[in-house]
């Protein structure tokens, strides 16, 4: 027998009137223990005012086609995904421009499914990128590779940043393509 199934959705009918015993005699009340549960839909949506706080300059940079990172001033330990303070010295970091540095793929995947918000984008390639002289990685979308040909050979491949013309003020304002 085939195990094919139609995709389930939560949507249902508006129901007026629910079956219930006409008389609440002891037998009828005992029967209530054998009822299937009633399930209803509850909507929940909200708009947050999210602050990028000390990371804000990165987004300003990306919207102006510059890729920033942060660095501990003395040790030079650099973060591809910026941090306001260094995790080893506790000191405030400084901004550096890494737009033109050599970048390579450290790890990647092809997402064929995803969270609901990103299902329309599937399949898409997620990748962690190394920048030359930077100690940590950057999570991004990788564009321009044939997802059906995914291969470990992609790791180590040189890539370069591209920027959205119309900034959305999100980390996806930058993405990477093969160099």
């Amino acid at each position, binding site marked *: 027998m085939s195990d094919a199934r139609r995709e389930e959705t939560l949507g249902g009918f508006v129901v007026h009137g629910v079956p219930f015993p006409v008389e609440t005699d002891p037998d009828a009340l005992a029967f209530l223990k054998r009822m299937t549960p009633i399930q209803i839909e509850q909507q929940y949506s909200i708009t947050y005012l999210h602050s990028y706080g000390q990371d804000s300059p990165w987004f300003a940079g990306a919207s102006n086609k510059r890729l920033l990172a942060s660095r501990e001033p003395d040790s030079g330990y650099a973060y591809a995904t910026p941090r306001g303070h260094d995790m080893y010295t506790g000191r405030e970091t400084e901004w550096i421009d890494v737009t033109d540095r050599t970048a390579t793929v450290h790890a990647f*995947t092809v997402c064929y499914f995803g969270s609901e918000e990103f299902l329309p984008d599937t399949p898409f390639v*997620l990748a*962690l990128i190394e920048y030359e002289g930077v100690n940590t990685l950057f*999570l991004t*979308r990788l564009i321009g590779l044939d997802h059906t040909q995914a291969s470990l050979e992609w790791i180590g491949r040189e890539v370069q940043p591209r920027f959205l013309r119309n900034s959305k003020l999100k980390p996806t304002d930058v993405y990477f393509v093969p160099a």
Partner: protein
Amino acid sequence: MRPVYALSGGVSKFAKARPDKTFQAIVKEAYDYAIADIGIDFPTFTRAVDGSVASYFSDHFSRQLMAGIMAQDYLGLVPKPSHRVEGGGATGGLCFQEAWKSIASGHMDVCAAYGFETMSHVETWKGNEFIALASDVSWDYPVGGFYSGYYAMMVTRHMKEYGTTVEQMAAVSVKNHLNAYHNPYAQKRNRYTIEDVRNSPMVAWPLTRLDICVMSDGAAAVIFASEDGIERLEAAGAEIPRPLVQVTGIGRGTDAMRMSDRPHVDYETFMQDYATDQERSSEDTRNHYRSLWDRGTRYPGVHSFRAGRTAGNMAYRHAGITDPLEELDFVELHDAYTSSEIQTYEDLGLCRYGEGGEFAASGKAFMPGIEYGLDLTSDPVCPVNPSGGLIACGHPVGATGLMQGVFAIWQLQNTIGKHFGDETLQVSDARRGAIHSHAGTGTYVTVSILEREGNR
């Protein structure tokens, strides 16, 4: 610290959806089972217990804040003390250890730990979105927040560095699903082949649907007590089996929320800060690691869980374990992905870093007496996830770490047959086991060691 005993436990049937009951009533199934298993009635236990710890991960799934107190209330435990713990996928493991602390510190003599999750209230892909909110919402989530994608990136790096193969990962799936065939609490009880795993729908390359655990509704509960607590329960009529099961070690570790922020340390730092005592003392292992570093490995990167290694080392020292593969009779670990089971073999020192894939397919982590249909090269040494793990049992997040504790108690009490109605998964003469609970991309990890009293 006082000795802490794990007396009994209960697990609700894990299922894709449990609309028949509210979360409080599902918790009560597990809680009642744990009480009944020490031969005591509900009112008597309620009088004897000092308090509780509640465990659930997400307020989003139930669209209910303060769900912990609603369970406490339903269980008739008010006004006794309680608190809720939350730490992503490790929530249940953290709860287990918080209850341990309540007893070890002398704050309580009898403590109930209960946990639950009802993930069926939203559609699967919305559920994935909720889970992905446990990644940095400024930097990670907006890029394509999807935990299977995060773990797939880790494993592509593991494959690149260590030569791990998709067939080795699939062997974990075959093992865990077939173990669960004998576990009536498990959500997925199936016999699969390596080909079945590889041919199931691709979710995030190279992870297929059968490499990944599913979302579940379910609950679990564990009862802990001190020696005084046992005396109190027995005076009230409880029948507590001997030998007792003692929790002899706990360990925890953490790591950066964004896996991109994790360091890539050199060989000397790894050996000094992270290597196990066993690894440091072996010239062969030092040479193995030197060779990995010469080829470019850096630690932990994204291929290893520093939090897991830290938690394991801490728990082993606490329990006096120096050779985990030989000194543990079983491990229930957090296999949200087949790949993360392989990564965790290495973190927990069951094999060396770089050898997890080979270990997975060797047979050392399999159960004896089960025909898996695989060409295994070694006899079982330390069964890993004899219950079927998260991949087959399911993963109702707040319950999962406690479920592992319950199965570990039953292994050490030699009562798997009684509780499962099937002896197949009973580890012969089980004296000591470990449970491992893991959050996020390896952000919080707990390891707890349970032993049959008199083991040493």
